[in-house]
């Protein structure tokens, strides 16, 4: 498997060098971009402290453009996990510009469910070293999936609107047969479809101001995640999100103010899951209101108009994020996190981030007996670069 990846990359690079030859702009354009990051995490809990070098992750992006309307984009993810090189396919999709207002995409693409995972998660874009609680590969909302999508944008007077509608395989409901303590969770990394029910979703974004500084967005994503033919086949999932973004250079404060926020709401219909470790064989069943919520709000400021060249490149960030998973489930937890950060931008795509996170949690996998309350603090020192 890994060999195939390496050979493919080799071919892509070789192909790219051919396209790059010649003086006339070629019809087919090829670009390798991407990003990497590395860092040190220092975690302090009631049990003690722990510090380790993390990251060493590299995500190359390959772009092939054919003519003015057609493009193929793919991103691979190389990461060291437990001393093993893990290779992931973040996305790989074709896109075609149908007309001024519509573009079609097919393959594995980042889902426009809110904006964080589609637009803001790369290490050189995310102002902080971590993702907000409940966002990301094991969060409560989708990041990417396989299917087709129509997207586009248009002006309405001085304002702008953007829209996207998609149909994808959708997540799989964990029924507790393999991991009883995760019964009722959605597994979004479900790329081999487990049923014929497709998930549909959409997002509409609106930029009401003439200077495009403000964007308000609303998304939903729904379908049936249960295995075909199982007792869970009729369970429905309805997810929705709202997002907010305001970015503007403001002269009186001599810098760029950036505010971002997103709220995710994940509701599944009631279902009965087996009690205890026996999983599917257990005859005792339980149920709970399967509602999870996660949100974050982030504010950052960079004195971009300062006269000092050092001050100009400094940025301060504050973020609050919260995750609540279903009460009465085996994975019930309530976690919140306050993260503060100080970044130094070496170039527009290269940054050193020093972040400190205060995490308060109740319940969840790591809960101690007794109150179940935990506090932990983490210091992150990360370096991220976009290529």
């Amino acid at each position, binding site marked *: 498997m890994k060999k195939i990846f390496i050979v493919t990359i080799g071919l892509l690079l070789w192909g790219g060098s051919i396209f790059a030859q010649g003086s006339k*702009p*070629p019809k087919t*354009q090829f*670009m390798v971009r991407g990003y990497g990051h590395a860092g040190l995490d220092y975690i302090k809990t009631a049990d003690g402290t722990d510090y380790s070098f993390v990251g060493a992750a590299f995500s190359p992006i390959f*772009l092939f*453009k054919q003519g*003015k309307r057609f*493009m193929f*984009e793919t991103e691979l993810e190389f990461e060291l996990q437990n001393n093993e090189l893990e290779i992931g396919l973040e996305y790989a999709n074709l*896109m075609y*510009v149908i007309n*001024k*207002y*519509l*573009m079609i*995409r097919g393959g594995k693409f980042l889902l*426009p469910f809110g904006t964080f995972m*589609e*637009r*803001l998660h790369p290490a*050189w*874009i995310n102002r902080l070293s971590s993702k907000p609680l409940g966002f990301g590969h094991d969060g409560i909302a989708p990041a990417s999936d396989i299917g087709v999508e*129509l*997207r*586009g*944008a*248009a*002006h*309405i*007077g*001085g304002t*702008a*609107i*953007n*829209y*996207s*509608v998609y*149909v994808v395989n959708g997540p799989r409901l964990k029924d507790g047969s393999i991991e009883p303590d995760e019964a009722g969770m959605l597994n979004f990394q479900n790329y081999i479809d487990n049923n014929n*029910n*497709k998930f*549909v979703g*959409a997002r509409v*974004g609106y930029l009401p101001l*003439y*200077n*495009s*500084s403000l*964007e308000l967005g609303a998304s939903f994503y*729904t*379908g049936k995640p249960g295995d075909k033919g199982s007792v869970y086949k009729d369970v429905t999932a309805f997810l929705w999100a709202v997002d907010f*973004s305001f*970015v503007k*250079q403001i002269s009186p404060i001599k810098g*760029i103010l950036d505010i971002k926020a997103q709220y995710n709401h994940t509701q599944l219909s009631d279902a009965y899951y087996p009690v205890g470790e026996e999983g599917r064989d257990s005859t005792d069943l339980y149920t709970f209101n399967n509602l999870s919520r996660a949100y974050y709000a982030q504010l950052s400021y960079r004195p971009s108009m300062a006269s000092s060249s050092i001050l100009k490149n400094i940025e301060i960030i504050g973020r609050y994020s919260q995750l609540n998973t279903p009460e009465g489930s085996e994975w019930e937890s309530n976690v919140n996190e306050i993260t503060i950060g100080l970044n130094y*931008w070496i170039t*527009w*795509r290269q940054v050193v981030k020093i972040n400190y996170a205060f995490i308060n949690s109740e319940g969840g996998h790591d809960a101690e007996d007794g109150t179940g309350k935990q506090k932990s603090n983490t210091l992150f020192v990360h370096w991220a670069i*976009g290529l």
Partner: protein
Amino acid sequence: MKKLVLIFTLAISVTAIAITVSSCTAQREVSAQKSGAELWAQNCIRCHNIPSPPAYSDVQWETIGLHMKERANLTSEQIDKIVAFLQSAN
């Protein structure tokens, strides 16, 4: 069944949007007055730091333009003007 209703509703909404938009030709001229430089300054800062024109070659800006049109859901008017500006100023 429900899903059909949903897909149908979505299709109608997309159509409605397209119609509204094409009937707004007069208003579209308002944003048509903005220059490529202005659109670049206002839009390319919304997710990441703003790249300056010399960062890439003309051919590379074409590819990035299409990539950003997709990623940021920018309008064709916006991205065409921005790419033209970046290519003229690099």
